[in-house]
């Protein structure tokens, strides 16, 4: 075959610059000392949230890392759970990933995470240093798959000024659901057209933060028993009845209009910050928003009302560290996690993120210097026997969506509590059964 010289010339014109670019083109910053082993660390935090963790990484690289020949490379990754999942599936995961606790069961059940029990013992990371609820966030089927990074509990934030105006005692916030219901009634205001100008509380998905599914838990419901989600329990029906009754008292359309006017809860549009919503449940970081957007807000913090005054239900959740299966440097990664799990180091991160400490006995300066003046309330809640976490089910992502639809359909008056629960129960049973069948089939195929 004859190739014309013009063809060769044209090819060279295209290929040579490409070769030149590959050979002499720009490179990443070569700041890693040549004698170090690189540990790739993917984390969700970027911008201001990444600053404290970058500082910890730098300190590690300068001290322990230098002694052990390890260099931790921090990467802020958006959608870190999905990317870690795909990288793990592709056989090239990071050595450490900063994920959310709600994904641990799903990934662990798919054999995507390295069990950390023996590594934790070897590196002297002991469960008794941590509050049980935080250690348990990383445990699935009695094995440790994750270590807590920055945990949080949820409490009631209430507007003291609005309480006073409504004739409520700002030093005695509601402790039970019945007291909450009464307070909501007294705090809700309408204009002459029937539009809500101020609401006591709302169970709208946007105002229940990132956990709208959690509402029935404050009525003592614990729907996951390890094998089945049970949403037809009396506690869940009670929670749904409350939603239905409350909607009919306040008025569905005025409430939807009020809720529809919220944009995001993270910013100045949050109606609690604008004093249009008297009570809300949120994590300790709410103080940061208050300081930024409503520094003069007169607010209080208390455990969220529960079914009975002696109980303190709270949602306890944590960001976690995992080592994906297939990580190239698990031992070096664990060395870094050992450094991270030192109380002063981890508490500096938790403080910077305005969260609670995962340790059994936080250091004095943790409370003293914490940006949230109510941090002791959040910390005490983590020790409540009623604290609950994300159900440890590999089907949780699907179950969460089904549960939310159940709440939503009652919230909008589309179904009665019994109907909504029955529909959700069927779907949940089907989802769990499908998962179990698929799992058995895969195990049978091995």
């Amino acid at each position, binding site marked *: *075959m*004859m*190739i*014309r010289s013009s*063809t060769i010339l044209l*090819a060279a014109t295209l290929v040579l610059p490409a070769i030149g670019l590959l050979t002499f083109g720009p490179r990443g910053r070569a700041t890693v000392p040549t004698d170090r082993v690189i540990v790739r660390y993917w984390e969700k935090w970027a911008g201001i949230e990444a600053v404290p963790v970058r500082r910890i990484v730098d300190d590690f690289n300068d001290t322990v890392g230098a002694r052990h020949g390890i260099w931790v490379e921090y990467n802020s990754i958006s959608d870190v759970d*999905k990317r870690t*999942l*795909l990288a*793990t*599936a592709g056989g090239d995961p990071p050595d450490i990933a900063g994920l959310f606790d709600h994904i641990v069961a*799903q*990934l662990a059940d*798919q*054999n*995507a995470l390295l069990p950390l029990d023996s590594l934790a013992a070897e590196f002297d990371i002991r469960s008794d240093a941590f509050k049980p609820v935080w250690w348990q966030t990383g445990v699935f089927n009695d094995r440790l798959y994750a270590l807590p990074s920055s945990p949080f509990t949820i409490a009631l934030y209430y507007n003291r000024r609005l309480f006073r105006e409504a004739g409520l005692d700002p030093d005695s916030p509601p402790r039970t659901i019945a007291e909450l219901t009464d307070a909501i009634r007294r705090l809700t205001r309408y204009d002459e*057209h029937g*539009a809500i100008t101020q609401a006591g509380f709302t169970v709208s*998905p*946007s105002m229940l933060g990132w956990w709208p599914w959690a509402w029935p838990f404050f009525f003592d419901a614990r729907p996951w028993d390890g094998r089945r989600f049970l949403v037809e329990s009396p506690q869940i029906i009670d929670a749904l009845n409350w939603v239905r009754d409350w909607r009919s008292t306040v008025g569905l*359309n005025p409430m*939807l*209009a*009020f*809720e*529809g*006017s919220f*944009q*995001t809860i993270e910013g100045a549009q949050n109606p609690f910050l604008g004093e249009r919503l008297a009570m809300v449940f949120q994590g300790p970081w709410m103080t940061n928003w208050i300081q930024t957007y409503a520094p003069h807000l007169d607010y209080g913090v208390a455990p969220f009302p529960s079914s009975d005054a002696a109980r303190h239900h709270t949602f306890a959740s944590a960001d976690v560290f995992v080592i994906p299966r297939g990580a190239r440097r698990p031992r070096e990664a664990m060395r870094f996690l050992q450094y991270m799990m030192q109380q002063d180091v981890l508490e500096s991160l938790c403080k910077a993120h305005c969260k609670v400490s995962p340790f059994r006995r936080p250091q004095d300066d943790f409370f003293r210097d914490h940006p949230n003046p109510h941090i002791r309330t959040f910390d005490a809640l983590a020790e409540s026997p009623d604290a609950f976490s994300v159900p440890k089910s590999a*089907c949780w*992502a*699907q179950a969460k*969506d089904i549960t*939310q*639809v159940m709440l*939503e*359909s009652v919230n*909008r008056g*589309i179904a009665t509590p019994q109907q909504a629960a029955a529909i959700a129960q069927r779907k949940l049973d089907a989802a769990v059964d*499908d998962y179990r069948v*698929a799992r058995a*089939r*895969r195990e049978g*195929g091995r």
Partner: protein
Amino acid sequence: MSAHRDSLSAGLLWTAPWWIGFLLFLALPLGMSLYISFCDYPILQPPVWIGAENYAALARDPVFYQVLWNTALFAIVSIPICTAVAVGLAMLLNQQVRGQAFFRACIFVPNIVPLVATGIVWLWMLNPQHGLINQTIAAFGARGPNWLDTPLGVLASLVMISVWSVGSGVVVYLAGLQEIPEELYEAARLDGASRPRQFYHVTLPGISPIILFNVIVAIIGTWQIFALPFVLLKMTAGPERSAYFYTSYLYDNAFRYLKMGYASAMAWVQLLIILALTALVFWSGRRAVHYRAG
């Protein structure tokens, strides 16, 4: 023969980047996804062949029917409205008026706004208490709806936003309108045709191939709607799951529920639906679409 072989080799060589890209990034993933659609594949473990079980499960899945209906309804409502508005705007822009370029730019600008920014802007516009739309309605003494809190409101909002961004279609229609020979209008006028008759007998046939093209593009686009409801409904499925569309459910199955086999089956059904609708549009338009000879 040798010259022919040489030119074939050179042709293949020069088109090699495309062929390689096509094989690696399109044909191979397509084939893989077809295979995976017959497997149980939770991403993190190897796929296990299960035959047509994913397709059978789809047929039993009520959420699948709901997203199918939501997507079809959005397509059925938005495509005719957007087409009519785009043709109308193109005809207006085809008039010789002062500031024509300015008006053309105004209509096209929404198309260069990133989708997320569009979603955020419309989120504010649709705010039931402070939004521009309800404030305008209130100025006339009426009360605007809770746009994003009812299934009908969600559909209306999404259609409004689709209409807002018809600019690219308008540009194509405008080009088509300018291609229609003026003699045809002259002949119609000599025969006494009124303006509406000229539109029906000259303009519409003249741009019919472009309408066909735009409708097919719109069918593909509406059946793949994902980002806009995602932003507008703050990552939720909306009231009564009315903003839960086909691609959103596909995404959830693939990356949240880790049912990649099921999601692949959904993707193939989606492809078949789009192909069938495209074929239907071609078939139904075979008499209505006029291609100029020469």
